[in-house]
């Protein structure tokens, strides 16, 4: 009895890994055969980023049950810190992949650290209030990064948060220049590293979910008071989930930032947070494989509809509403189950007739 339960969980995790690996192998194969158009090749890295973002947000929203509307803020922290580090290390670390990985680790660490600092006061709030505060933090983060100056000059490393561009001492260069963001980034991100990041994320998140910590987090979501009554420190576990989620989002952000030649703070706004949330909800709360699939499909869907020009976003909106109605509405569910029953019935009859 106990065995079947464990096997079921393992089976699902295995399926998740398998889907990701098979998808990677297929895309790699097609790419080596030169069968991928440049547009599709361009999607590969951002899709990896959004998959990681969706999984990490799912940890918070689906598993932990806390709505966050500021995930793009952590992505932004990771993106800018990663890009800055990669630029600084340009001459010290030769290997591009190593530089990318260092940038990702740095971006993730910084995002996790800021997540921790934010979490101390904020995680006392719950539900919609936590949601609005995360939204506020996302906006603050965007606002601060948009007025941040990071660079090097003859006096060494320079960092400033200011309303006007500060003066450099002697010869030097701003890497991050306020609202202008970063330009002239050397693209480092590759599909292979993106794939590696997805695997790492799956490993961490799936392990976490199936551990004592994961059970505690789910327990807090299901019934906070009961969780406290068995000795679980609710704040600690919300914090753990929050920091892990921010860390992964930061890593994805660094990968994202190093995939483009320029980057500005406006990209990491409320709409981006919302898009990631849409991936999570449509993929299914707490369903990691669902997040992977829905992030992929929903990222590609509007891109693939570019031919439809002005209509694409309106179609996307309608699809989104319809999907929500079909998956959640009790009436629609009832109707579809009736239809399904009839179909089954019909099928059975035909089979019986055939048997006769």
């Amino acid at each position: 009895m106990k065995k079947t339960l464990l096997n079921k969980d393992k089976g699902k995790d295995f399926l998740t890994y398998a889907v990701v690996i098979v998808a990677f192998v297929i895309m790699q194969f097609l790419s080596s055969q030169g069968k991928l158009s440049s547009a599709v090749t361009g999607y590969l890295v951002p899709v990896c980023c959004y998959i990681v973002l969706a999984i990490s947000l799912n940890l918070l929203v689906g598993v932990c049950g806390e709505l966050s509307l500021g995930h793009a803020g952590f992505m932004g922290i990771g993106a800018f810190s990663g890009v800055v580090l990669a630029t600084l290390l340009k001459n010290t670390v030769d290997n591009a992949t190593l530089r990318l990985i260092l940038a990702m680790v740095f971006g993730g660490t910084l995002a996790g650290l800021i997540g921790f600092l934010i979490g101390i006061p904020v995680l006392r709030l719950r539900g919609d209030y936590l949601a609005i505060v995360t939204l506020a933090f996302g906006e603050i983060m965007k606002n601060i990064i948009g007025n941040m100056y990071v660079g090097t000059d003859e006096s060494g490393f320079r960092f400033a948060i200011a309303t006007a561009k500060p003066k450099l001492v002697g010869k030097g260069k701003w890497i991050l220049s306020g609202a202008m963001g970063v330009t002239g980034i050397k693209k480092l991100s590759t599909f292979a590293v993106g794939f590696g990041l997805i695997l790492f994320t799956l490993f961490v998140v799936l392990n976490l979910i199936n551990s004592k910590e994961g059970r505690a987090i789910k327990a807090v979501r299901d019934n906070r008071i009961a969780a406290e009554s068995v000795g679980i420190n609710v704040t600690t576990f919300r914090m753990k989930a929050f920091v892990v989620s921010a860390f992964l989002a930061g890593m994805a952000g660094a990968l994202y930032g190093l995939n483009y030649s320029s980057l500005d703070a406006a990209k990491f706004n409320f709409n981006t947070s919302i898009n990631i949330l849409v991936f999570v909800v449509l993929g299914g709360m707490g369903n990691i494989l669902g997040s992977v699939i829905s992030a992929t499909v929903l990222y590609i869907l509007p891109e693939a509809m570019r031919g439809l020009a002005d209509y694409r976003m309106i179609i996307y909106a309608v699809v989104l509403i319809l999907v929500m109605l079909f998956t959640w509405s009790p009436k629609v569910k009832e109707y579809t189950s009736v239809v399904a029953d009839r179909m089954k019935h019909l099928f059975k009859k035909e089979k019986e007739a055939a048997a006769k």
Partner: protein
Amino acid sequence: MSNQYPKNTVQVPTFNTYRESDAGKPLVLDVRNLGIDFGGLTAVDSFSVSLGPTEICGLIGPNGAGKTTIFNLLTGVYQPTRGSVLINGIDTKGMSTHKVTKLGIARTFQNIRLFTDMSVLDNVKVGMHNQIKCSFASSLFRLPGYFAAEKRANARAMELLDFMGLADLADQKAGSLPYGVQRRLEIVRALATNPSIILLDEPAAGMNPSETTELMHQIRRIRDTFHIAIFLIEHDMNLVMNVCETIAVLNYGRLIAKGTPEEIRQNPTVIEAYLGKEDGQ
């Protein structure tokens, strides 16, 4: 853990309301002049009770007398306005629920609070949370410590489920179980925290007579197997009178009597609280 708090070891007095085998041992629960006000309303006032290490004590009283409020005070859900609660000799003043639980107190809820979306086994394993020694890093990266700890936890959880006759249901979703089974699962979850006292809030509510009889045996069996104290709120007088060695009676937030079932049955104040004054009818 224990040495960071001043320990106050009052021993079980030797008069007859306590179990003889408890005599001379330290109290597991010692409540002194407990009181709480909500706004201007006094819900509980000067409530004192103490339980020996293997005592089964009932807490009875009319609806709205403040019984569940007392459980909430004991477990740190509410902070008392007055008085103190000592669990295993340690004052719980200012502690949050999860810290109080670590001192060795566990509870069930009147309106069942299971982790409905999780399996029965996982519910018990959540209860064992503080017993499972496995670092955050080893569960995140599946280090060897994780597997060993999980294996032990599974075995222990199954043992506890088996004890309450729930082993067959281990992989069912907790929310899908019938009412009586859910109540028993809550008890298993409470036992999983390795407590020295458990509080049962109306364990027989919603159970049919045969389930209640079964429960009565189980309550005694829990005490005899785990050697812990049990403090229970119950309206089923048959259960209370048969299972409890001592009974505390609460009315309007005050303790009006404590004694053996026999003493309580004959106590005029208790009869009055339950039935009203004779001349008032």
